[in-house]
């Protein structure tokens, strides 16, 4: 193979037809209310570790719907429950995190 000094770039496109959404589907079975997230961002805004570790339940939930690996974010959660308090849709975010950890295990 010839080294041209450049190669094909990896596409960042989300392909909804082919991406693996199985983790999300598993999660929905365990925590059906997770579907109700409307991406308001309250959880991320209030998250204790969000500003240091980039944690946000919204990003976790959206990420698994888009086939992203959210394990690092999950592991930074301290289960303090502030996100559960602020969620206007009443999603049990602590339950969501714990179940998602199980799915990852």
């Amino acid at each position, binding site marked *: *193979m*010839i080294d*041209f*000094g*450049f*190669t*094909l*770039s990896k*596409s960042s496109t989300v392909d909804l037809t082919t991406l693996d959404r199985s983790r999300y589907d598993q999660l929905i079975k365990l925590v059906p209310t997770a579907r109700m997230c409307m991406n308001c961002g309250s959880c991320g805004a209030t998250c204790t570790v969000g500003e240091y570790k980039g944690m946000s339940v919204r990003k976790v939930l959206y990420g698994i719907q888009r086939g992203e690996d959210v394990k690092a974010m999950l592991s930074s959660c301290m289960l303090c429950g502030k996100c559960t308090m602020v969620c206007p849709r009443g999603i049990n975010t602590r339950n969501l995190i714990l179940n998602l950890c199980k799915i990852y295990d």
Partner: protein
Amino acid sequence: MIKDGKQKIWADYQKEIPDDHWYYVRSCIRQNFFPASEKMFLEITRNVLGKDIYETPHHTTCGGIAYHADTIPQETAMTMIARQFALMTEAGYENYCPSCITSFGNYVETLETWREFPELEAKIRENLWKACKREFNKPKYLAHTSDLIYHWRDEIRKKAKHLLINKETGEPLRIVEHIGCHYSKMFPHKGVGGAEYPYVLAGMVESWGGQVIDYPERRHCCGFGFRQYLVKANRGYSVSNTHKKFESMEPYKPDAIITNCPGCPYFLDRWQYVIAEQTGKTYGENGYGIPVFTYEEIAGLVLGYDPWDLGLQLHQVAVEPLLNKMGVEYDPKAKYLGLNKEDLMRPEMPNSIKCC
């Protein structure tokens, strides 16, 4: 795909193209990339169709490459364009046809900008006068040279020696048409057929017997992208875009690609080799690539010109598969003979993609 719907859109985007007396300007790069294309345009229009096409050696670049590579400001490019218009005016012409798509885009952009901002036109006129004591009239009609071949496509068809039809099967050849971005994406009404479903090349393909392929990434850029290619660190983006197009068109098994831009045929042609080297994948039949042509080259083949006089030996991807399908006679031994019949020697053949 509903053909009627496309025809309705095509009907909305027709432009007036005068039948004769055109002032012709060349592209900066086409003579290096596809050396016989511009010559063939003049040959076909002047000698086959009997049109008056005027050309002067005094014209320069339109500044398009520098403008799109961010090295000159728009006013400079406009002043260069003003000088080209001055040459046209001095020659007594009012219909202007550039051979380059980016030039065409720049001319349209300049004329539209002057229409919106007459004070800028006045300033450019002053610049030109200061620089070289020239004055100009704006062209009455502006068309890309592919618009002209489109305009005369049925006359070419009447004189055709070969059609875009598979000689063995009698089936129309499957042709991908690729339009240069600067043709109509900026000003859809200035292009034949508009920007979403341009008809300029599709019209030629249909007239000459071929079948146009509409594949999902049809509207996507060829990958040239000026700075994406010109800066080596960006070249991965350039080839990735080309790769995306080939992946998208592959299932349709195209027999050839027809283009109307200087950069597109070059990159669609050369990048097939690079992609083959990097991924081992080729997109034509039996290890070949998909041959890529300019519209002048296709017109030349249709009219029965010798493929080697059309400069097709300079393509990276072998053109022979298409020549065979069309039933074009050619002498394989003459492929690398110069105009004086001297041997030009053989290029090194890649292993990754089959060439002749």
